[in-house]
């Protein structure tokens, strides 16, 4: 279980996170919603070790992560799929996947074989990646790059996948596909912490959600509770009455 307690992160004088507390249960999809500038990406970067929080704690299965750098966090089984995919455009699809397995040992033939098998599994899960294995990742479409970014993160065999706005900039059809991938990964036992602006989609897969606003948790609950709360609906998610 991932437990964030009273987390504060600042960029210089600007406090982007101001005492955020939340938890993500093992085996669940936990979703963080909120408008632009609410601190969603800052939260993800703080958990993933890219940003150093000013105060508060981040515990994963009892291990304190808030003082670790990004490789240290990854070692404990948390992998971030960054916003805008950020695949390595000049490297092939296969090399992108190999880079995802960088922290895994590869000193014995058995370990190398295991990584190769995992890459094959990714090709089986995302056939389009297999078809384009030798192609530079920059030539893939947005949706394909998102699949590659997810597969690359999975190559580290994470216990929990942190996903920052996986639907951003993708067409509605591809967004549906991405969310069915998220649901599928969750069925296979991977915990997911998802940041999204597409609240309608996110709430379909989420077990629990938090609403972030101006660096604070404004609301938390289950998607069912959200449906019934008119104020929240109108204030943060737009009128979905139609």
């Amino acid at each position, binding site marked *: 279980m991932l437990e964030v307690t009273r987390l504060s992160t600042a960029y210089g004088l600007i406090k982007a996170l101001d005492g955020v507390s939340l938890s993500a249960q093992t085996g669940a999809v936990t979703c963080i919603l909120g408008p632009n500038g609410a601190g969603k990406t800052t939260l993800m970067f703080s958990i*993933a070790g*890219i940003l150093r929080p000013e105060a508060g704690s981040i515990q994963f299965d009892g291990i304190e992560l808030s003082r670790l*750098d*990004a*490789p240290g966090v*990854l*070692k404990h089984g948390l*992998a*971030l799929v*960054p916003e*805008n995919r*950020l695949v*390595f*455009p*000049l*490297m092939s699809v296969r*090399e992108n996947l*190999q*880079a*995802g397995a*960088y*922290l895994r040992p*590869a000193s014995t033939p058995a370990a190398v074989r295991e990584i190769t098998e995992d890459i094959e599994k990714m090709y089986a899960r995302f056939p389009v990646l297999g078809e384009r294995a030798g192609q530079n990742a*920059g030539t893939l479409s947005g949706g394909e790059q998102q699949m590659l970014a997810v597969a*690359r993160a999975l190559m*580290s065999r994470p216990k929990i996948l942190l996903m920052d706005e996986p639907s951003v900039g993708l067409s509605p059809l591809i967004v549906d596909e991405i969310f069915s991938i998220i649901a599928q990964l969750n069925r296979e036992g991977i915990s997911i912490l998802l940041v999204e602006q597409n609240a309608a989609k996110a709430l379909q897969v989420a077990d629990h959600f938090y609403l972030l606003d101006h660096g604070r948790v404004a609301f938390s609950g289950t998607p069912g509770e959200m449906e019934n709360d008119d104020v929240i609906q109108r204030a943060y998610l737009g009128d979905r009455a139609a």
Partner: protein
Amino acid sequence: MSSSARIWETARLDMNANPVMEVVQTTLDGLLVGAAYALIALGFSLIFGVMKRINLAYGSCLLLGGAVAVWLEPYLGWGVVGIFAATVIGGTVASVYVERLCFAPHSGRRAATASMISSFAVWMQLDEISSQLLPRRTHDFPGMALDTIEAWGLLIRVEQLLHLLAALALMGGVFLLLYKSRFGLLLRAASENIQTASLLGCHTSRLGLTAFALAGVLGGVAAFLILSNDSQITPLFGLWSTFKGLVAMMLGGMGSIPGAILGGLLLGVLEAHVAYHFGAEFRDIATFALLFLILLVRPGGLFGKSAYRTERNAGERL
């Protein structure tokens, strides 16, 4: 740029009879020098690729390596082997020193300026140390003093040929390291997007240190090749190598590995032909004319279109 003057004093056969052989001989001479340029450009490119910053003290690291080698020679007395080892080790240590002092402490938006200016200061410092070690205007730099052989109507200095082979072997090694090893995979990933690479488990500070050390080794070998070819070392060598390396890298494309190799070889061949046909004083004019043309037509350099795009992608974040 007088430091390289003697590099061009290649003996020539009487080639009036055969213009084709003339072109071949000049091109060969150019490739021999170009290989050393390529190594320096590779060092620049490795650093720029990972850090996206320019190391102005790089040439001075090479000078210091050479100066330390010449200064140590009387104490060690190991001959050419000792000179070679001391040049490479000296260059590498200096390069790591520059990284720790000018690059590691800076990150974020102002890092590029901070690193460039502090590396400028260290450039002066390293040049001064070199001048203290070797106070005279020129000092002898021992080479292997091998004979010149004549083959297929061409004059080939065995030493230069060995240098070319060594440079090619080193480039091959760097290529294998970058494209066939896990470390190289991560180094390339980091040069595309260092933050994402750290998300995949790359310790970025360690990677920067490794890139500088590797650049130091490449530069040390290049310095030995050029200096022993010239048989002398002057205080201008640092500036001269920074200048040649930067131009070769910009020709090929900033941060591009194949670009650095091609840019170096191209620069060497161009200089050889210009010096042969118009005289040595036109060499640098031609170099800058070519650089100007390339920047006009292909601002990213020959292999640079992709490098330019990478830069933009990296800039989109944060």
